[in-house]
Structures are given as C-alpha cells and as structure tokens.
C-alpha cells in the first residue's frame, strides 16, 4: 500500500515528528528527574545526619538520662521509654475502636444519610492537623478531666490522632475479603458476627496489621500534639502512667533548640535512632504484606 500524496493545504503540513519526539524524550527525562530529585535530596541529608550523629550513638545515647549540663554524656533513655509507653497505650486504645468502627462501616452500616455523615466525619478527622488534636487533649484530658500533662493524657491524644489512619486501613482490609467467604459462612448457618469473627477478620488481619504499623510510625514521629499536651519538660526518671513525659521527637526538638554543638550531635543521634525505629516498623509492614500476599496466591 502506498501513501496517498497530500494535496493543497495538507501538503504544507509538516508534522516535524523528529523534533516532537525529541521534546517528548526530554520531557520524560524531566519527569524522571522530578521523581527522584526529592529522594536524592533526602539521601544526601540522611548521609549528613548519619555522619554527624553516628559518633554520638554510644551506650549513653540509649541508657543515659537527658542532661542540660553535659550533653556529651546525655542520652535518650527517658524519651525512649516515654515513646514506648505512649506507643503501647495508643495502640491498645486506638486499635479496638478503629477496627470496631471499620467493621461497623463495612459489615453493618446501611446505606443512608447517617452512614454518609459517619464516613465524611472520618475523612475530615484524617485531615485535622495533629496540633489541633493536641489542643483537644490539652483542653479535654489535661484540664477538663484533670489528668494533668501525663503519659496517659498524651497516649489518649495520640490515639485520637491515629484513629482515622487505622479505620481507613482496616476498612480497606475488610473490603478486600472476598464476598464468597461471607456467602459460604452464611450458607453454613453462621450468624453475622460468627461470619465476621471467624472468617472476615482473620482474613483481614494482615491488612489491619500493616495499617496499624503505619499508624504506629505516625504515632512515634508525631511531636506537635504531644508538645501541646505535655509541654517540653526535662524528665530525669523512667516514666509511668501518671508521670510527666517526653518522647523521642520532643527531645530531638529540645536539642535542636540548644546553641551548643554537642546538643546538635545529640539531636543527630536521636534522629538516627528515630529513623531506624521507623525503618524497622515499615520494613515489618512491607514484609507482612508481601508474606500474606504470597500465601493468598498459593
């Protein structure tokens, strides 16, 4: 087949394909560079913070209390324990409520105006800045309920921060359970709750777990809410449920604010610890997800 020769105005049409494809190629490269630019910047910053803080990452960094006088020997003991306390309490509070809400919305909720409001509400809660949650915690738990700026108040506040994250993740996991599971269970005469507890939830556990771990990493890294609830205090003892607290990001924040170089190194060391904790959490989440996905296929 031969191409028909173009006549008239069309003959003057020059597609300039070479040029257009060249521009297209340049555009693709720009897109690629745009994708990796921020990541490269992050890697460079990480390398710097590691080179600055690695030397300071000794025994003291983990086991010593903070000290204003000699930052060379100060450590993150109080804040590490504080973070652990807050994290455990937070998950204990947010996980049951979050999964409960997700189960209701996915398995029980009728399609009506009320359910719509519930869903809209959760989406909006996910967008509320954590500093506003901090003010809720300060007003409600610390002042109104008279708990004081203690670990429990901080954990309750953080639980509210991560609640929407857990609900969204759990809903996705529950939605991914094949409808046939439910049908089979109903067919055998199981009740609604028997179906949910014996079939839907066990199948959704990996997804819920992954979402929970991501929520946990948000809880560990979040400083704004806890700053408002607990203030910035110097904790020289291991925290308990009703003691004042500091957490890892807050102590890093404190160290950044100090003028001495030793504090700057301490902050870098704290950042390394924080990033490693987050890395471990996220790696666990990815591992869990891939492992259970593989099981499903076989």
């Amino acid at each position, binding site marked *: 087949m031969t191409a028909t020769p173009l006549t008239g105005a069309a003959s003057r049409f020059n*597609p300039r394909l070479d040029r*257009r*494809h060249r*521009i*297209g190629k340049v555009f*693709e490269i720009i*897109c*690629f560079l*745009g994708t990796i630019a*921020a*990541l490269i910047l*992050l890697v460079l910053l990480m390398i*710097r*913070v590691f080179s600055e803080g690695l030397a300071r990452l000794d025994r003291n960094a983990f086991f010593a209390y903070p000290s204003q006088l000699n930052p060379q020997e100060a450590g993150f003991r109080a804040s590490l324990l504080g973070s652990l306390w807050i994290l455990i309490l937070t998950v204990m509070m947010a996980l049951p*409520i979050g999964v*409960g*809400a997700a*189960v*209701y919305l996915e*398995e*029980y909720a009728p399609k009506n105006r009320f359910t719509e*409001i*519930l869903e809209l509400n959760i989406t909006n*809660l996910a*967008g*509320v*800045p*954590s*500093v*506003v*949650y*901090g*003010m*809720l915690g*300060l*007003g*409600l738990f610390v002042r109104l309920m008279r708990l004081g700026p203690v670990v429990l108040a901080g954990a309750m506040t953080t639980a*509210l921060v991560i*609640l*929407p994250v857990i609900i969204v993740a759990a809903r996705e996991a529950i939605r991914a359970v094949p409808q046939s599971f439910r*049908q089979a269970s*109903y067919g055998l005469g199981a*009740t*609604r*709750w028997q179906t949910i507890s014996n079939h839907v939830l066990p199948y959704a556990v990996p997804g819920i777990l992954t979402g929970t771990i991501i929520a946990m990493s*948000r809880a560990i*890294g979040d*400083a*704004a809410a806890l*700053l*408002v609830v607990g203030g910035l205090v110097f904790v020289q003892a291991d925290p308990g449920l009703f003691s004042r607290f500091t957490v890892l*990001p807050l102590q*890093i*924040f404190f160290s*950044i604010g100090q003028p001495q170089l030793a504090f700057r190194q301490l902050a*870098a060391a704290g950042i390394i610890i*924080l*990033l490693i904790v*987050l890395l471990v959490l*996220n790696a666990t989440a990815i591992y869990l997800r891939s492992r259970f996905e593989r099981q499903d296929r076989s």
Partner: protein
Amino acid sequence: MQKLTLTPQSVAEALRGQPALQRREAMIQLVMLTCAIFCIFVTVGIVFILLEVGIQFFTDEYFANSGLLEQAARELAIQQGVPARELADITRLAVDERAVTFTRIAERIPNTTPEALQEYYENLKQTTSGGQKLWLAFTNSLRRFFLDNRWTPLFASKRFGIWPLVNGTVLVSAVAMMVAVPFGLLTAIYLSLYAGRQFSTLMRPIVEILAGIPTVVYGYFALLYISPIVQRIYPDAPIFNVLSAGLMMGVMIIPTVSSISIDAINAVPRSLLDGAYALGATKMEVILRVVFPAAISGIIASIILGISRAVGETMIVTVAAGQQPVAYGDSFWSALQAAINPLQSMATMTAFIAQVALGDAPAGSIEYKTLYAVGLSLFLMTLAMNLLSQYISKRFREVYE
C-alpha cells in the same frame, strides 16, 4: 437458573427462633456502632473545646475593659473640647489597664491627669451592666482580632491582629507548594504513565517515605542543612527563615500531591489516550493536552489537600521559621514587601500554638485563651480546605463512572 444470594438480612431472618443468639448479635452490632459513633464524638470534642475556650477569648473581660477605657477616653476628650479628628488617635491608645496606658492617653487630653482618667474609667466600669460589657468585649475582641495588623499577645503591650500569623502560614505554604506541586506532578506523571509496572510498584512506597519522615527531622534538616545554603546565596537572610522551612515542607508534601494525582490520572479512560495517539500525538502531547486536563479536578483536589497539610504543619515551622510574627512597615509598599519576603523569620499560626505550649501559659489567662482563638481559626481553615478537596474530587468521579 436463579442465583441464590444469602444476605445478612436473610440470616437474621433465620435467627428469629433463637432470642439468645439474636440478642447477642444485636449487642455486638451496638458495640461496633458505638465505635463508629465515637469518631463523631471526637469531632464534637474538638469543636466543643475550641469553641468553649475560643468564646471565652472573644468575651474576655480584657476586651470589655479596653472598650470601656476607650469610651472613657472619648468622653473625657469631648468634655475637654478635643477636636473630633484627634479622637480616633486617642481612642486607639486605649488597649489595656496598665498605668502606662493611662499616662499616654492623659497626655493627649488637655487638663487631664492619669488619675482623673482612671477614676472616670472605674466609675464607668461600675455603672456599665454585665450585658453591655459582654457585648463590648465581643465587638472589641472581634475588631482587634480581625482588623489589627500586629500580633503580640505574649508581650506586655498586647496586640491581637491575627493577620501576621495568617500571613506567615500562607507564605510558608506557598513556598512549600512551589516545591510540592511541580515535583509531585512530575512524580505522578512519571510513575503512572512512563515507568514500567515493576518500577512503579517499587517506587510508590519509596516516595511515600517522604511523608512518613517525622516532621521534627525535616525541621532539623531545614535549620541546620538548608538554611546555611540559603544564607550562602542570600547573606542577609536570618538563620530562621521561611524559605528553608518551606522547601523542606514542600518535600514532605510531595507524596500527598503525587499519590492522589496518580489515582486521578489512572482514572482517565484508556479510550481518551488511544484516541489522541490515533491522531498522531506524541506521548508528551497526550499527557499534557489530554490526560492532564481530564485529570485536572483530581489534581486540584490533591493540591488543596497538600495546602491543608502545609497549613497544619507545626514542627518544621517551629524549628526553622522562627517565632517572630511579621511586622508591617508604615507604607503600603514596605508592608507588601514584608508580607511576601520569604527570606525573613516569620511565625505561623501553628508556630504560635507551639510557642504558647512551650511557655506553659496558665489556664484562664488571656494568653491561654489566645491559643484557642488561633486553634479555632486553624481548624476552620483546614476543615474548609479538606471539604473543598473532597467536593472537587467527588465531582470528578461523577464524570467518569
């Protein structure tokens, strides 16, 4: 053949003869419902707490008193025959109950000592009814909150104009979006249209890492690594500056923009792309002229959500942007320059909240109440943007489904 589907309703029907089981089922459903309703309580709690103390701010005695002092100063000035055009200058001085304020006002009114003014004021205070005071406090606080242009509630001489803080928030967010929008969109385009499947599935969680890094870490980067670079380029810039905080915040927001934009791009029907290719368009032309316009509402929704993130971000700005609310000069041009110059340190709304939290303001004080007035404004701003983003992305879904 009719397909038999078992629904929860039909199962419930089958339970009719077993009241014990029925009761248990109902109980469990109630527990789950309670969990879901709990979230509504959280929202109600936020609104309640913010409004409760926020309203206390807007009806605080402090503002009633300054309103009364203003009235006292005006009446005394009129009695002493001060010309009407000078009245506004005098009443502007009436801000609080400090001795220096009385002295300053009395200096402007002939034949009046600070003591006489104070006496007149105390007199007025006693004769004014509670309701009038409340109304005075309300109007006075609203006027000072929205019409003043300086923010110094933690100083002895208090000014309550919210705009310098809003200015800081908007400027930092603008810098952040200048980073997040181009890089987020390039990422979205590359990962959804150019990259291979494997590379894309590998990269998406890696890009998400940017949003998962604790903000205090970004603050550290901004203050100690980015800010010195900014200072090398602009030697006049202070170490705490909006530019470096905004740049790091932009990096943090890239995934917010990119991941929602990827979903929007993927929702563009394949046929639209194929049609454009069939007309001889190159890939870039298809992306820029077909995919992009078709996905624009999703992209805009993602950008609005990104702005909302930037507005609510606290630690980066607290660490790296400084605690100094912007002060406008006298002329319009110097004010404009102060408003848009990112090479200065500038407090944002969130940074002010953190500052008060650091200082441990006693409950019931005007400083503590100011915290909630700012928090309320912040909450309303982010809520409005989140709702707008949802509204836009909902509209866009209707088009293609």
